[in-house]
């Protein structure tokens, strides 16, 4: 199973970048979401993937039995998931408002501040 995770990370990044290149602003949001999921998965996998080895200290011991899964990436990825959840909510609102104001979801209609 372990070999699937890097492939999945790659697919998420590729799909995300593809969506960012499209012209619909809704696809921008989807693209950013996919990329941040890819990054989250990468952080999660960075501590090494070990099935069925929780970092728990047995009742009669001082430290967890090796090998155990690294808990730190899991803590970090939780933080990152919460952050990306909040940002996604914000971006969805922003896209909605921008769509109302511009009246179009084609990124070509969003160029009035560029030049």
């Amino acid at each position, binding site marked *: 199973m372990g070999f699937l995770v890097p492939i999945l990370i790659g697919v998420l990044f590729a799909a995300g970048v593809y969506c960012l290149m499209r012209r619909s602003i809704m696809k921008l949001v989807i693209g950013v979401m996919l990329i941040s999921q890819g990054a989250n998965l990468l952080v999660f996998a960075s501590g090494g993937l070990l099935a069925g080895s929780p970092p728990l200290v047995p009742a009669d011991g001082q430290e967890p039995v090796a090998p155990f899964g690294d808990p730190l990436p899991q803590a970090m990825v939780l933080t990152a998931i919460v952050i990306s959840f909040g940002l996604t909510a914000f971006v969805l609102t*922003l896209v909605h408002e*921008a769509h109302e104001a511009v009246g179009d979801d084609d990124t070509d209609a969003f160029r009035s501040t560029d030049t």
Partner: protein
Amino acid sequence: MSGLLLLLPLLLPLAGTIVLLAGSLSVGFQRVGAVVCSGLTLVASLVLLVAVDRAGILVVQLGSWEAPFGISLVADRLSAVMVAFSALLGAAVAVFSLGEISRRRIQRFFYPLYLLLLFGVNGAFLTGDLFNLYVWFEVMLIASFVLTALGGARAELEGGLKYVILNLFSSALFLSAAGILYGVLGTLNLADLAVRLEASPDPGWLQAASLLILVAFGLKAAVFPLFFWLPASYHTPPSTVSAIFAGLLTKVGVYALIRVYTLVFEPLFPQAQGLLLAIAVLTMITGVLGAAAHFEMRRILSFHIVSQIGYMVLGLAFFTPLALAAAIFYIIHNMVAKTNLLLISGIVIRLQGTADLARVGGLYRSAPWLAVLFFLPAFSLAGIPPLSGFWAKLGVVRAGLEGGWWFAVAAALVVGILTLYSMTKIWAEAFWKPRPEGALPLMAGGVGRLGWMVVPVATLSVCTVALGVFGEFLFAFSERAADQLLSPQEYISTVLAGRGKE
């Protein structure tokens, strides 16, 4: 005690945010709260700066978890001076906002967001942990996202959308780099990373992570070719917001680049040097050419932010003690001058209804005091002695000549001339030219509470002069800060020993 010194520049804006969010939404309360809070933060940051300069690096291990297991907050000279000047800008712009920010915005929680932005920026300067830096970036970004789009007008939403999407992309790259570094080195504490990286047998992964970080921070610092979000979004919100963004956000990106390349990726620097030089030169040139092509004050100034970032990255790319000192001096000078110029564009909009140079004019006659206040930061930006920009540019150029980087030095000098051209253009169009036909009626913006806008502008102009006249003092400080950066042993041993030097 020293721990409290380090924490106060973070705790004060956080407390201010909470009080203003929870407290009354009355305009008076929000205004007074924001100004008082940013003023107290300024005092606390100045105390921190003096303490760090005298006593050396201060460290706080949050939750008393020894580094590298807990999160360390670290203040060395660079961090402390960045915190001090962002607090100066924070206080000045808070006073300015009293004259500009409308009741409607205040009731949409403008001031809590403003203090949250200062909180995030200070956190990014003070943290000693890579993942924590990511979190501070997000705090800073979410506050800036909402501040950009708060007005809800079409331009703000359009500019805001570009700003948000590109910055989220860069955050994802940063997070990936943090994940890779943790996977290879097993730590995220910056000092510990520096120790383990030297002993690491796996340079390929580290190179990949360092380049991902270069792209992520480069996007936030708005370097070539990643700067497009900046000129598209900075001219849309009120001048208060553009000014504080111009002073703080891109500088956080530059600070982060300097921090990781001097502390963590120092062994990888030789491979990155050519790339950094090219980025710096192209950033300077494209920024200044973009500014030359525009005819609206705030758009011109936005492109100049990009161009000036090039000088700072150039200082990093030369990587000599003098060059880093010049880069630090440059950041400080630029924070003050650039914020001030954007505030002045806000006053121009207030007096004449627009900052479009084709439709304003005659300010030298109608508001000579404003002409003087504009003259100082504008010509400082262009590098005219004895203002602060001259010493900053002189430092960068001398460092380049010592290292034999003729091409980069030539580019820096040409860009200096083109900067002068842009500033002269604003001067000639807005101040000297008679008011054009078809200009908006005078005082179209209404002049109520203009005094609140003038006082901070005057203060920052005086600061620019003072930074120039007392340039030697500040340059000596920058050199001490650069020495600290180039001999990271003090930083590493202070953080990993778990105690400050006292």
